[in-house]
């Protein structure tokens, strides 16, 4: 058995799965951001109905497991849409986006609630409409505060994307197990290799988000933070609960 020859020959087979992982992560993150702003604005609304709808959706997707949601989407979406549904990547993006979007919605709501009330009063004094207030003043100020917890969530989403292998989407995790097959040295190599790849992807996300944060903070005339790229994780649920407490 030529170990080195085998594993080297296998490497090109990772090219497509790498892009499936990146696609699911980027697609899922963008969809999650959309969901987060929609639900987050609704959850901070004056109207009880909007708040109620948002809260229900948020609690539902946070309370049920992502793995279950993924399987559930795979079963239910084709049923609900009355079609044979082969694009598992779309389902993966939907499930990842809804799940992490629900967590991110709390981040969005919390950061918006933390904008000082004086800012809102100034908007009133200048006769801004709700959307002008949000677009011109509130969201630009809340955005830098959102980035660190969103960065934590994006890395969680990257890790969560490995679950799509459970519904037979050929991502990195799936490919490593296909190439490994038996519990031997080769399999261990493949798994170790993709662990390193995931770590590098995490690092890239963290670096990118740090860059965004610096830019956003500069946009507020603040000194950007100087930390290493992979900083401490911000516990997302706790962070939002704290913001809720401040809001009261």
């Amino acid at each position, binding site marked *: 058995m030529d170990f080195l020859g085998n594993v080297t020959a296998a490497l090109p087979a990772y090219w497509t799965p790498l892009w499936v992982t990146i696609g699911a992560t980027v697609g899922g993150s963008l969809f999650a951001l959309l969901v987060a702003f929609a639900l987050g604005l609704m959850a901070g609304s004056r109207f009880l109905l909007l708040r109620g709808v948002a809260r229900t959706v948020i609690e539902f997707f946070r309370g049920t*497991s992502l793995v279950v949601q993924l399987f559930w989407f795979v079963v239910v979406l084709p049923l609900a849409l009355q079609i044979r549904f082969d694009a598992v990547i779309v389902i993966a993006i939907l499930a990842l986006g809804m799940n992490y979007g629900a967590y991110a919605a709390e981040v969005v709501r919390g950061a918006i609630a933390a904008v000082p009330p004086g800012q809102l009063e100034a908007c009133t004094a200048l006769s801004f409409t709700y959307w002008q207030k949000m677009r011109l003043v509130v969201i630009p100020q809340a955005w830098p505060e959102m980035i660190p917890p969103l960065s934590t969530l994006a890395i969680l989403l990257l890790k969560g994307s490995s679950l799509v292998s459970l519904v037979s989407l050929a991502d990195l995790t799936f490919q490593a197990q296909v190439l490994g097959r038996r519990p031997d*040295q080769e399999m*261990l190599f493949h798994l170790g290799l993709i662990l390193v790849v995931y770590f590098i992807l995490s690092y890239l996300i963290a670096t990118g988000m740090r860059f965004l944060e610096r830019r956003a903070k500069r946009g507020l005339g603040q000194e950007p933070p100087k930390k290493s790229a992979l900083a401490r994780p911000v516990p997302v*649920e706790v962070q939002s609960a*704290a913001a809720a407490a401040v809001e009261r």
Partner: protein
Amino acid sequence: MGWNWETAQELWPLLMEGLRILLLVTLISSLIALALGLVVALTDRSAPRAVTMPLFAVMEFIRNTPVLVQAVFVWTAVTMWLGTAASPMWTGAIVLGVHYASYTAEAYRAGIDGIPKGQWEAITALSLPKPRAWIAVLLPQALRRSTPALGNYVIALFKEVPILSAIGVTEMVRQVDGYAGLNYTGALEGFTIAGLIFLVVSYPVALLMRKLEKRLAN
């Protein structure tokens, strides 16, 4: 292929068996995560850099890679080492516990960092010995601050146990998947009920943690 109550009924005992294993794994993993996290946080404060730097690197690596891959990796390694298939449940529970220790360590650390400076000064002023200071003064305060975060990590861990179905832990998702594979039906019912069970178990705990967090914030 709509909703079928009979199928749901047939699935129920399987789901309950899955839930039992789910809770068992959650318990073992949580204990590991809570204990190991504390050890890591305390080591990080007191050990020399030659120890803390590699420890930090290992924790970073664990935290930033998927638990699914970690579980398969460790299971493969242990199986090779033993020469026979490793126990999926124990392997899975330990991997999940260690994975979450990389998070709880940060929660403990934040709790310790949040202790007011005056407390440390008072300890010095009273010449309290270090072990005593930690047990009587510092840890009780740190734990109080860390509790909501720790609780939330336990909930998160609970919801990630189904990932271990990949190495054959027969929790709820694996049970439903097995049933659906044999009978070509039951996926809709099984996954829906499994989701609701997750919600019913985790939501009250989540509410409790939020309440606690609010109380601590005031």
